[in-house]
């Protein structure tokens, strides 16, 4: 069975991706900064699906490298990577303020978690992929990284987050071009407004009822984490063997607004 390393494995998209990959015949190695939640997620998925779990801060270059190496050694190789670590859970004050009112410290943290850490993780996995004859990468970007600002007012106060996510998309495009010859495919997904650990589906449904129609995605609702995960699983699979360097927009059509 192929092995996939998933960062942010305890988050909504990470755990849903783990479930979708397990369904499709992968075994998953989960990593998350929240070790307690990670072990609950791993227990929930079961031993058949889970090939390892690491309490890991993705902004620690050496620790990321160590965990990815260990995952590959323990399982005799590595074929997949999903970088779902991110979100704003661990970055207080990073969103919701005009750029003028934000601090350089918050920019550092945002860029470190959302952009640099994706490089750290890909950098750790690539040599293993090259040795194993290839691999598949899916980076979780964001609709905010596809286009910033109006008329999607919600991105107005997320300037640096949006910039970092745009960076992830371009990083993935670069990677797709330079690693294709070694059998590596790299793609990303750009979720719109979907449930997360911080915003449960119940809360999203309530917001959905309160939101005016014009601000809802064209499909009229917000998204489930499993809907993002299904796209991740597709891009990771052989069915996507001829797809590299794309960014799949999973936002119920929000990008068209």
């Amino acid at each position, binding site marked *: 069975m192929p092995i996939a390393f998933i960062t942010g494995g305890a988050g909504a998209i990470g755990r849903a991706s783990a479930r979708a990959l397990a369904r499709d015949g992968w075994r998953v190695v989960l990593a998350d900064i929240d070790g307690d939640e990670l072990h609950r997620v791993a227990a929930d998925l079961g031993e058949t699906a889970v090939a390892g779990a690491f309490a890991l801060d993705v902004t620690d*270059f050496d620790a990321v490298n160590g965990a990815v190496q260990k995952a590959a050694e323990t399982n005799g190789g590595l074929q997949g990577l999903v970088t779902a670590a991110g979100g704003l859970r661990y970055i207080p004050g990073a969103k919701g303020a*005009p*750029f*003028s009112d934000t601090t*350089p410290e918050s*920019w*550092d943290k945002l*860029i470190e978690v959302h*952009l*640099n850490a994706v*490089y*750290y993780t*890909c*950098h750790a996995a*690539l*040599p293993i992929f*090259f040795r194993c004859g290839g691999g598949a990468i899916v980076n979780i970007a964001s609709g*905010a*990284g*596809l*286009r*910033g*600002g*109006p008329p999607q*007012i919600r*991105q*107005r106060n*997320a*300037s*640096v987050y*949006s*910039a*970092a*996510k*745009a*960076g*992830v*998309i*371009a*990083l*993935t*495009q*670069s*990677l*797709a*071009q*330079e*690693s294709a010859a070694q059998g590596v495919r790299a793609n990303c997904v750009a979720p719109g407004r979907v449930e997360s650990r911080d915003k449960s589906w119940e809360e999203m449904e309530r917001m959905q009822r309160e939101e005016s129609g014009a601000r809802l995605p064209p499909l009229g609702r917000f998204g489930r984490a499993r809907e993002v995960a299904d796209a991740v699983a597709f891009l990771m699979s052989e069915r996507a063997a001829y797809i590299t*360097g794309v960014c799949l927009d999973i936002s119920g059509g929000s990008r068209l607004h």
Partner: protein
Amino acid sequence: MATALITGAASLMGEGIARCLTARGWDLVLTDINEAGLRSVANNLPKVDRLETALMDVTDRAHVSAVVQEAAARCGAIDALVNCAGGLRGLGLKPKPLAETPPEEWRRVVNVNLKGTLNVVHAILPVMKQQRHGAIVLMAASRGLRGGKNAAHYSAAKAGIIVFAQTMVLECAEYGVRINTIAPGNADARWKSPDDGSTPAPLGRPTSAEDIGKAVAWLLSEDAAHVTGACIDVSGGTTLH
């Protein structure tokens, strides 16, 4: 007369921009980390009413803020900001695949290109907010519109700049400021040799510093009064390849 502050002004592109702006009557504050280069550019420019130079390392937040405030106080206003500081090979780094890029090189490229831009914009906003007008042009890159081989960090940082500018449209509009980006591709640079082996653009020649300067001048002018959040591809068609 209106004053424009240009960062990275010692680069060939910075010089081209300065030349185009002086030809249109702008006063200039030129900044760069390279003092000798800055002096040389300033000395070669045609005479204008006011031409100032100041050393600036865009990665040094406190310093950026101090330079911008001093320039605003001396000139009375900064009507335009052109952020041209950045680059990859200009930083003395060689393009290489992501898998072979050490973390210090990754961070250096992101710090100068992306965080440097954030520092400069953050420093200029209070000035433009107070004067209630202004125009900002940030130098992105063709590779920010579509990532390129052997430059994942540079592509990521430049893509970040394009989207950052888009997110700033409303915040800037509140006090009469426009913000746009330019994506040069295949552009001339001081580190390039004539037979660099780069593929010619569909328009058949490299992108000159003057090509970029003209686009900057347009974005800063009244002719572009209703243009904000745009990214102008100035690459002779290279980005399409």
